[in-house]
Structure formats: structure tokens, C-alpha cells
């Protein structure tokens, strides 16, 4: 089945230690998104790639960066995780940015010690 895959499902890191979360998709969608979701809150968009074009949200901290080496993969890099970065990180894809339904992966829960 076509899907959005996130690895790992759970990630533990230390305060200040860089961490990378990964997302892959078999949907061949042009757009990939990264969201941060904290407990009992709505997902918050961090950034998205439309093909190779990177679009950062204005309030996304510089601590968060992303890479998309090809259509299928997208990475979220957190350079120096703080305690406030502990959250669920969701990857989503859509065919087009303006008309496409977004399909979400299962998420990676990040714990910062």
C-alpha cells in the first residue's frame, strides 16, 4: 500500500545533542511537510518542500532544519534539542500544495532528556 513512513517511531535524545528524524513516502507526492504536535494541541507546521523548493514558516526556530535529497525522502534535523522540543513530529505529503489532501505518517515521538 502507498504510504508515509516515519522512522523511528520513538526517539530519545539528550539536551543539546543533534537528532535527525526521517520520513519516506511511496505516494510519489510533490509536497512533503513537517509538523510539530505537542500534547492535546493541533499540529503546527514547521516547513514544507514543494519538490526541491524549501518553504519555512516564519515562526519556525532556526534550530530546526530540513533536507529533501529526493522525492521519496525528507529529514528533520534538530541541531540542539531543548526540553521544549519534546513533541510528536509528523510528516505529511500531498500531491500539490494548493489542492492536495495531506496524508500523514504515524509520527515520531521525541523525548529530550
Amino acid at each position, binding site marked *: 500500500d502507498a504510504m508515509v513512513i516515519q522512522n523511528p517511531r520513538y526517539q530519545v535524545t539528550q539536551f543539546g545533542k543533534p537528532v535527525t528524524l526521517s520520513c519516506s513516502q511511496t505516494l510519489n507526492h510533490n509536497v512533503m511537510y513537517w509538523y510539530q504536535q505537542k500534547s492535546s*494541541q*493541533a499540529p503546527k507546521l514547521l516547513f514544507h518542500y514543494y519538490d526541491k523548493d524549501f518553504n519555512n514558516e516564519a515562526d519556525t526556530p532556526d534550530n530546526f532544519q530540513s533536507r529533501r535529497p529526493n522525492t521519496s525522502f525528507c529529514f528533520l534535523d534538530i541541531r540542539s534539542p531543548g526540553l521544549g522540543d519534546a513533541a510528536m513530529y*509528523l510528516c505529511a505529503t500531498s500531491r500539490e*500544495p494548493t489542492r492536495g*489532501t*495531506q496524508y*500523514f505518517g504515524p*509520527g515520531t515521538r521525541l523525548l529530550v532528556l
Partner: protein
Amino acid sequence: GESVGLHLPTLSVQEGDNSIINCAYSNSASDYFIWYKQESGKGPQFIIDIRSNMDKRQGQRVTVLLNKTVKHLSLQIAATQPGDSAVYFCATSNQGGKLIFGQGTELSVKP
């Protein structure tokens, strides 16, 4: 600023009853509306969507109603089952494509 809100943070229904989850949005330029279901520890799962040229759309056991006049969206679940227990998010977008999520309603189904 643009916002999407839900009327109730929690909703409890008896198994077999119908559920109605409501959502209000503020941007009259919104032209795409979508409902997601999120179970604990999982990513949001697409349920149903509707575009602004429609006022009703039906899926399997779910119906979405759109009232553009009052900027109101609702999700109706027929014959609610324990497996429907989850947090439900509405989201809207305009031609800019960015989804604006509401805060979520937690649906609990009592057996």
C-alpha cells in the same frame, strides 16, 4: 488573525448513537475543508473533505456539512462505535494551500 475553532473540547456519546462534531472558521476565503481523526500515539488520518462549491458530502458512516454563510463546518458520525474514539481535527485552507488546524475535539464512545 485567521483561526479555526471547535465548539467543544470533549464529546461523550453512547455506542450506537450519532455524533456531531462542530467547527467554526474565520477566513471567508477558505475553500477547502478537511476532517482528520487522530488516535492516541498515531498520526492524523484523513476522514473526509469538502470544497466550498458543495454544502454536503457523505462517506461511509460520515457526513460533512458546510455552511459558508456562518462559516461553520460539522462532522456527523452515524452509529458511533468504540473504534471511533479519538481526537477529531477540522482544518481549512485557501488557495495558498497551508492547512489551518482547529484545536481538536476528543470523542469518547461509551459502550
